[in-house]
């Protein structure tokens, strides 16, 4: 018995020394692995891990391996703050990839900035996320531009005169809802009603009954693919068929399986990927590598976390694991090749990304060609 314990102890010691020696170049990641957004988190984690695996298998950074430290932020602010504080204070990472949800990105990015750690926000689109002061960068489009594109498409292309909105009760959902409504009314549309639902909701029938009575031409929604799948199915069952315009949260192939045919005809605003041959090739390579490793197609979160992690690795390669140096390097990138888009940041850290509208047809995303 005693010898068994000593064997276990030495194995443990060995395991820990191994971890310690490989932990030289750390990149922190926070994403939701539990809670309402967990299925996005799984895919995002795969994207980030793929970027690290590719870098490590091609020699790492001057022979040093990169280690990803993944923390669960649950998609909510409180857990996101705790996870970020752990990465900053305990792991002392120079750069954090996170901010899938605005609720996490808003507080977490401030903690990173105060500690001179670079915060690469992936999909948070809250307008308040970025501000002068460095250290905070956003890869996705800000709500202000995405909302405007959604409204322009609704008014100009779909010729919708009246609209209603159903938004998740999150920072993202309420902000997008407010911006869309303001833009729609400003450009001459008639806004009929807004409603919000608690994240993770599965039953929308009573809200839909309310909207159906108002009969809007278009409905703007902010919902995860899980929520949207229920929503679309229940709309079909209630025989309520307005034009639907959603956001990049629907840009995930999982929606086809969950919603089936009921997702057909839905429009969604998402970032416009690079359409140059080099960009196309990079995306195709990524898709193939992802499918080979995980046996499924990547959702939009995987793309963003791949790009952000890739950017962090390249920054460490170029200037070493120091927050301020990485901040300087990332702030200066021009047309950095990414699978989401070619990345250049504005002085306050917003990626300059055109937004495009995609349509779901026969369980496929089809580009409508409408972009701003």
């Amino acid at each position, binding site marked *: 018995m005693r010898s068994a314990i000593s064997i276990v102890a030495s194995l443990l010691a060995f395991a820990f020394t191994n971890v310690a020696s490989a932990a030289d170049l750390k990149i922190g990641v926070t994403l939701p692995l*539990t809670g309402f957004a967990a299925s996005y988190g799984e895919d995002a984690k795969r994207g980030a891990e793929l970027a690290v695996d590719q870098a490590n298998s091609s020699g790492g950074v001057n022979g040093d391996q990169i280690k990803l430290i993944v923390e669960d932020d649950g998609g909510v602010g409180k857990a996101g703050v705790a996870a970020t504080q752990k990465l900053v204070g305990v792991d002392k990472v120079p750069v954090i990839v996170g901010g899938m949800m605005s609720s996490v990105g808003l507080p977490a990015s401030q903690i990173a900035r105060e500690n001179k750690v670079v915060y690469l926000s992936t999909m948070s689109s809250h307008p308040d996320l970025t501000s002068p002061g460095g250290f905070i960068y956003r890869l996705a489009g800000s709500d202000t531009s995405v909302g405007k594109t959604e409204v322009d498409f609704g008014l100009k292309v779909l010729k919708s005169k009246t609209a209603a909105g159903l938004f998740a009760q999150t920072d993202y959902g309420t902000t997008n809802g407010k911006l869309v409504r303001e833009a729609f009314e400003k450009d001459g549309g008639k806004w009929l009603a807004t409603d919000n*639902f608690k994240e993770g909701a599965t039953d929308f*029938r009573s809200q839909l*009954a*309310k909207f159906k009575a108002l009969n809007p031409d278009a409905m703007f929604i902010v919902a995860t693919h899980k929520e949207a799948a229920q929503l679309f*199915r229940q709309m079909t069952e209630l025989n309520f068929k307005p034009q639907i315009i959603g956001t990049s949260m629907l840009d995930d192939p999982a929606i086809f399986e969950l919603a089936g045919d009921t997702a057909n005809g839905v429009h969604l605003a998402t970032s416009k990927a690079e359409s140059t041959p080099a960009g196309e090739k990079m995306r195709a390579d990524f898709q193939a590598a992802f499918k080979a490793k995980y046996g499924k197609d990547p959702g939009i979160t995987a793309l963003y976390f791949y790009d952000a992690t890739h950017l962090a690795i390249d920054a460490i390669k170029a200037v070493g694991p120091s927050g301020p140096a990485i901040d300087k390097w990332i702030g200066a990138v021009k047309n950095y090749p990414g699978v989401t888009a070619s990345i250049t940041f504005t002085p306050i850290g917003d990626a300059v990304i055109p937004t495009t509208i995609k349509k779901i047809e026969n369980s496929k995303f089809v580009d409508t060609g409408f972009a701003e």
Partner: protein
Amino acid sequence: MVPQLLVNSIVSGAIYALLAFGFTITYGTLNFFNMAHGAAFTVGAYLFYVFRTLVGLPLAGAAALAVTGTALLMVLVDLVAYARLRARHAPSWAMVVSSIGVAIFIEAVISLIFGSDTLSLRRGEVRPGLPILGAIITPNQIVILATAAALVAVLTAYLRMTRAGKALRAMANDAEMGIVIGINPRSTYMSTFALASGLAAIAGCLVALETDVYPTMGQSALLRAIVASIIGGIGNIPGAVLGGLVLGCVENFGVWQLNSGWQDGISLTLLLIFMLIRQSRSYVLGK
């Protein structure tokens, strides 16, 4: 719109009633808030997914196996997590803490096995529902209503007419007296767990048919079960059924006038009101 809201209310109310039924008899018999009641709901839904989608059994067979499996599992959980506490006459809060542990454990195991992704049981094309009296009702909703109504009828008969049912009610009323007059507490506790978790599993299967399955689905189910039980007077079986229906109505009609983000707020306000009312009277009505 009112007929539609009424249909929605009754359908969600039927699910809440099944959940509250089990929650309330567990409280009555074992005298503790079983925080793992939502876990039985989740297990039922996942077993249903396994037998229906992975094994490919027909609907009724898959549901029967899922419900039996959940009931057996929860009887086992009783032996592991509660029976020893009971034997030591542990206070009620110790049982509650133990049940919170069970709930977290089960949720984590489900996430480990199935992942946190949402799984869908739905197959085939989604069609518009049937228009009835100005409302639209789907075949699945009809199944939910029929199942819930049949179960409530059968269970009421069981509790009133059979020996085991009477024993269960007697224990719920006064456990010590029940033991004195010769009721076997062990078998009553076991049948309570089997019945309560079986009902939660049936609710899980019905919800799985309607929506999808995911590991945290039991959390809101538990909240609804608690609220409905308290509205009906905890321990009171007809009260729990009525409480479920009232909760369904309040939630769905509340959405009509208020922003639906307030849905949980509405049910919790209702809970608060009923707790205040009941505190001034006898807390447990059914006894």
